[in-house]
């Protein structure tokens, strides 16, 4: 055990920090959940990619630098500490790409990974349906074989940035007589497919960051089938491991937010009377981010030793999503009557954080997973 960073890791950190200091836009970009902001964020992804920072842990042929997981965690710490923009490509990079690496054919890997990493093709997730949320195995959208094509009919919803995305990764029912986990397939669908319409839905913050997808005889070629036909559930579950675990929300994001919260407390304490209850809430947020950090480095060591991430990923998802809510709620309490103003970014952050315990499997589902699959409690 050596919990200091090696000279090579420190050098990597310095390089990332220096580049970010010189390149992070001075002014925040427009919200990525608006059409203009989406394109601004796409431009930022191009800049990151061209400098080799978009996907540091990926193979070089897809635009990465084959950095070990520890360096990716270091990059995330530096990235969020620098105040850099949110990652508009993260659903593709974090949720779909690990699945393509594991299940994709060489042709699919060559076709999709590099444009995804550069933000040339930005992906949205098409899993949830009006009647299948937490109960994902209840999806009904059908994709019937027609020669080399699948013909899709049905409806998806809650697709983040689905009104602007270039591609969708969808879970569909390819065996019309199947039920539940059987007979599902994982299909990659171009947004410009005929018979596919994406309609924006206003989110809690009023921005068109959600979309519904309507499929009406949309034809998708079989080369866009990811994994085997009828094996979609196993393929999809590999993706949820990434979504809940290490990939989507690294500790650096919350460490940076906790540091900003400490700064906010200092700022307000300088101009008024400090409040010890609120100070303790600030400390609690800082502690949560640090605990996530050390738990993640411990997990990294386990993964390096060959252990799978598995159901333990649910611990991480619950931790970061509830930490994020509490952290922002603390900031709003510190701000008092100014908390409702949206120019401080804390209210925006709070509204966004509230989605965390819902998306990627609600935290109730995560607690079921922890109790049944980690602790081994009886399912019924």
């Amino acid at each position, binding site marked *: *055990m050596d919990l200091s960073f090696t000279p090579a890791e420190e050098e990597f950190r310095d390089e990332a920090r220096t580049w970010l200091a010189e390149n992070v836009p001075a002014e925040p970009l427009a919200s990525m959940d608006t059409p203009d902001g989406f394109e601004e964020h796409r431009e930022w992804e191009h800049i990151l990619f061209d400098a080799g920072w978009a996907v540091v842990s990926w193979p070089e042929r897809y635009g990465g630098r084959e950095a070990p997981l520890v360096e990716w965690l270091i990059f995330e710490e530096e990235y969020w500490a620098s105040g850099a923009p949110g990652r508009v490509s993260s659903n593709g990079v974090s949720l779909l790409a690990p699945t393509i690496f594991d299940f994709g054919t060489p042709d699919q890997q060559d076709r999709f990974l590099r444009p995804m990493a550069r933000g040339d093709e930005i992906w949205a997730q098409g899993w949830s349906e009006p009647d299948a949320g937490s109960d994902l195995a209840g999806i009904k959208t059908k994709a019937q074989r027609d020669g080399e094509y699948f013909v899709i009919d049905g409806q998806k919803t809650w697709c983040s940035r689905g009104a602007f995305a270039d591609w969708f990764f969808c879970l569909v029912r390819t065996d019309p007589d199947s039920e539940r986990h059987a007979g599902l397939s994982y299909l990659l669908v171009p947004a410009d497919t005929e018979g596919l319409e994406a309609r924006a839905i206003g989110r809690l913050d009023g921005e068109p960051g959600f979309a519904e997808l309507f499929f009406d005889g949309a034809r998708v070629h079989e080369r866009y089938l990811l994994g085997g036909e009828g094996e979609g559930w196993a393929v999809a579950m590999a993706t949820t491991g990434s979504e809940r675990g290490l990939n989507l929300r690294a500790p650096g994001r919350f460490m940076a937010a906790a540091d900003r919260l400490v700064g906010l407390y*200092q700022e307000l*304490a300088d101009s008024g009377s400090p409040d010890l209850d609120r100070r303790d809430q600030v400390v609690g947020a800082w502690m949560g981010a640090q*605990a996530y950090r050390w738990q993640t480095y411990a997990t990294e060591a386990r993964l390096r030793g060959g252990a799978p991430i598995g159901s333990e990923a649910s*611990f991480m998802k619950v931790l970061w999503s509830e930490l994020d809510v509490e952290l922002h709620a603390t900031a709003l309490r510190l701000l008092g009557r100014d908390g409702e103003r949206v120019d401080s970014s804390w209210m925006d952050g709070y509204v966004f954080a509230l989605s965390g315990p819902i998306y990627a499997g609600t935290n109730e589902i995560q607690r079921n997973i922890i*109790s049944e699959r980690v602790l081994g*409690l*009886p399912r019924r």
Partner: protein
Amino acid sequence: MDFSFSDDQIMFQEAVRDLLANECPPEVVRSAWENDTGRTDGLWRALAEMGVVGMTAPESAGGLGMDETDLVLLLEEAGRAALPEPLLEHTAVGIPTLAEAGGSIAEAWLEQAVAGEATLGAGADGGYAVGAATSDLVLLIGDQIRAVPVAGASLVEHQSVDWSRRLFEVDGEEVVLDADPGLAFDRAAGAAAAQCVGVAQHLLDATVEYVAQRYQFGKPVGSYQAVKHHLANAALKIEFARPTARHAAWCIAAGDPDRSRDVSLAKALASEAVDLAARTALQCHGAIGYTFEYDLHLWMKRGWALSAAWGDAAWHRNRIAAALGI
């Protein structure tokens, strides 16, 4: 950055776990509740024979030259078994502090302590030294470290909720050690954190086992979501406290500049984890857990005691605030 333990460290942990599984069952813990000493017959000797008791001493003093990263897994095991022996006071605090102080006091006590022939106690100055009456030299840690030989000292005993923890106020002739009291305190708090994690893990494991075999309304109570989510919450607290306790051990061993802050992170989270685990364990056991006869309370009470010892969660959270400059 490498958060993996070596094969040797894991083997040492497993050896201690096996020893305690065989030699420290609940009946043995109960014997320490009932007897005159609060200790067990022979477990300290067995641990000395394995090299555990003196492991933190330099090899030149007969120890194994090991540090907190080697000890932390054993402290977790001690908590898991509710071991009523002074692994914290003697091995985690006393020996490295004496070795650091050197001089005549170390000459007088260190080798005997490493061999398990003399027992070192430790307590917060102005607080209590657990097991002082069965110790030979007690270190009282405050703004300085006062070493008090127990022979000839005056001891005032208080009863702990955990009957194996014999609490003593200690006063007597003293030697002020040339050792860092902040480091000694952090060693104690860090060790208490690791033990809290172990106690909490046992409380969780025992409760998972119980609710899987306890039937009500024709189903195991562990199949009800209300019970599951209680246990998931306890598991979450433990999952995130454990790495911070291990990280704190490394900070102590490596002399990290943020040592005190990160020991406080560990102790605050570990105290909170064991508090929740104890609360959850009792609730999920129902009335059987509320009896003196059932073993659960041995761990609950150890958890309550360790949670408050060497700084409770609130104390450590305040110390973090100070370190953050707020």
